[in-house]
């Protein structure tokens, strides 16, 4: 039977952290999460791993495998050269809890600042009608399983590049799903520009590359949102019109995003994009 050599980050905050090596017997079709479970069941019962469905539907088991952000339940051992060690590390963008588990609560705090779906007051639900092709794009955004790999890989968040907070690709996708819902009445453009920091995204598309749901985050969500914001705030005709009609703040304008704390210090610099 083949053996995989796992090199797994272990440690807690406020300690340097270390890599422990485990030889794991390989069965056909095995994924990295299976190997981590084998380690828990046979070698390191307290190895901290976050997971739930093991079917790429819940987005819990995110980690960095050989430096690349991945769902460990969907990462096949057969994709690796088993003569080389496979390095498994926690997501770098978020603060460490222990071993492979990070504190992703910042994402939930950001999410709470987004104005939810707002249906029209004057159209009774019995009259709501829309065609499948009208919602295909919205359904694409809503495939998101909140694995936060896009947040992890986003250099703006990962490297703490900006003075003001940036909501990150995940929440631009959520906002896009709301803004482009056929019946939504809210206007999140000012929120996206100011609190959300949409301008910080410089379209490197790293988020799209790591998305396990294959959502075209940059092309289909962020760029259309940027265009909407630009039309509202940077189009000269709109500026004149807005001056004439007076200022109307949009939904959740003036909201403040929390600041993302720094990620695990103990991981290697080996890295993703």
């Amino acid at each position: 039977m083949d053996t995989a050599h796992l090199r797994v980050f272990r440690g807690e905050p406020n300690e340097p952290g270390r890599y422990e090596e485990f030889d794991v017997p390989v069965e056909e079709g095995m994924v990295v999460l299976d190997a981590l479970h084998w380690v828990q069941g046979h070698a390191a019962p307290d190895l901290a791993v976050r997971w739930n469905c093991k079917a790429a539907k819940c987005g819990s088991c995110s980690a960095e495998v050989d430096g690349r952000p991945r769902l460990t339940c969907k990462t096949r051992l057969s994709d690796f050269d088993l003569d080389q060690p496979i390095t498994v590390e926690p997501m770098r963008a978020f603060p460490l809890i222990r071993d492979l588990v990070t504190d992703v609560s910042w994402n939930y705090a950001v999410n709470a600042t987004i104005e939810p779906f707002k249906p029209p007051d004057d159209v009774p639900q019995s009259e709501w009608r829309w065609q499948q092709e009208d919602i295909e794009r919205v359904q694409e955004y809503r495939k998101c399983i909140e694995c936060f790999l896009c947040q992890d890989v986003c250099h703006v968040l990962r490297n703490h590049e900006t003075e003001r907070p940036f909501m990150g690709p995940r929440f631009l996708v959520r906002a896009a799903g709301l803004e482009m819902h056929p019946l939504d009445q809210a206007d999140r453009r000012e929120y996206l520009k100011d609190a959300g920091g949409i301008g910080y995204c410089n379209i490197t598309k790293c988020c799209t590359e790591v998305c396990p749901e294959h959502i075209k985050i940059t092309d289909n969500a962020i760029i259309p949102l940027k265009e909407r914001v630009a039309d509202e705030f940077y189009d000269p005709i709109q500026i004149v019109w807005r001056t004439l009609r007076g200022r109307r703040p949009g939904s959740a304008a003036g909201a403040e995003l929390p600041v993302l704390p720094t990620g695990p210090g103990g991981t290697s610099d080996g890295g993703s994009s």
Partner: protein
Amino acid sequence: MPPVTNLETHSHDVVVIGAGGAGLRAAIEAKAAGLSVGLVCKSLLGKAHTVMAEGGVAAALGNVADADSWQVHFRDTMAGGKYLNNARMAQLHAMEAPARVNELERWGAVFDRTPDGRILQRPFGGHSHARLAHVGDRTGLEMIRTLQDRAVAAGIDVYMEATITRLITGRAGATAAFGYWRATGSPILFRAKAIVLATGGIGKAYEVTSNSWEYSGDGHALAYEAGAELIDMEFVQFHPTGMVWPPGVRGLLVTEAVRGEGGILRNKDGERFMWKYLPDERRGEYAATDEEATRWVTALSEGRRTDARRPPELSTRDNVARAIYTEVKEGRGTPHGGVYLDISYLPPEHVRRKLPSMYEQFKELADVDITKGPMEVGPTTHYVMGGIRVEPDSGATTVPGLFAAGECAGGMHGANRLGGNSLSDLLVFGARAGAGATSHAINQPSGEAGFPHVDPVNVREATRELAAPLERVSGDDPYAIQRDLQATMQSLVGIFRVQADLDEALTQLAALRERGQRVQVAGGRSFNPGWDLAFELRNLITVSEAIARSARQRTESRGAHSRLDHPETDDARWGGLNSVVARAEDGTMAVSTSSLPTVPDELRALLGTAH
């Protein structure tokens, strides 16, 4: 005020344990009534098992089939449950499911559409009409995200990654929930005027399951320990189609939507075996020939109506699971011990559009392209019909102040659940349990005076119990005990049962309980999965014993409970009887029966002459 000094204590009018669909819906209901609500969950918000539900939510909206109505949905549910369902629950469920689904749409859910722009519905096993509102094959994700966003916007306090290990009870009934933060291991206490359990199922008692680690029967066991009754625990649903290969994904769910969209089951000889297994009394509801089944599928894929009847693969889950098991057992299985499920005769783009996550799942995890060839599937432990006995209208358990909803509650599904009825169950009864808890809470004095006294002795006991597995210097490894438990349940309390096996299972479970009490955990308190497992094991062993004792008592076969030594359904002896499990005075588990409530004449009339 903390009953024990230095213990982190939170007080809410209503505390909900579990944040899947039922827990979220209950929390939303209580919050909408203006109460303070705490929502406690073992995982991150939005990761609960609801997220894995695929095929759809059953509700008689009548968008695709004009003839559908709550009365037909009620009748299908009762027939599917072999008339062991609580009729009042089945009635409330069928009547209220359409309103609960429409409510989700008002809250932002984006369901697939009919050609005239309304919510699309798909056929499923045991449902007379196309009834399942859906979003491709990721309906559960759409539902949990919609409910989660609603709960967050409403301002519900969410305690993520907190595990509850004990309910604290007193003369007033349930008074508090005790547990720990998984990140730090620190103890935490939730005082409440009313507590709702919405903890889901028990699948981790078995080796082959579609369930995640969270499904350890926590709510069942917490309620049982607190003095509540469990009913119908012998009824464990083995979903007919789980993946069987490769080994790492064995048990992973293959949605019934594959069969709903026309998937055909064949054995290794190419025989479409479901024709052989249709029960005679329902045969008239199914196509008579391959040709008629094909006409039904073609009409469905083109969005046309048809007079063709549905294919035999859409029989109820208990029946299809037994059929597959029997085919494999009798030597007609595939090389990996399953049968073939084939949807590749439909156009590839149609399959990818209707079943996108199945397409991905097989491509990524099994190197199988389901648009080009068949899947290999076999039964997998999926759902427990049995659960905490509740009052149908309010979700009240037999313990004052304690409510339950969703999979951990019993009664709704009888002896076998129809696909799609769990998502509607958790919406309907989540809302009802939330309302039940709300009225209980507002009937207490307002403010601090309304909180029941929390016995500090019980809290200290729970605190000691929490630390014990870490402090033992020797003992059994929790992972080893879990492996042995799963082997026992899989081999002795599986799809087909027999008295001698069940006796042996109870002997083994007693030994496992002994070992579980001496479990020793390596490492510390911070995010230690071995420590989590130590508490889950206790719950799993309790529910396993409840399943085995109930299964041993019921000397007949009905729905998901099949006794090789009692193959007939024995209506004279067992019809209308629920199994009941409760803790006896001496701490042992007592099993008995109780009669189903009388079904009112107007509901009985809907069931037809036989019942």
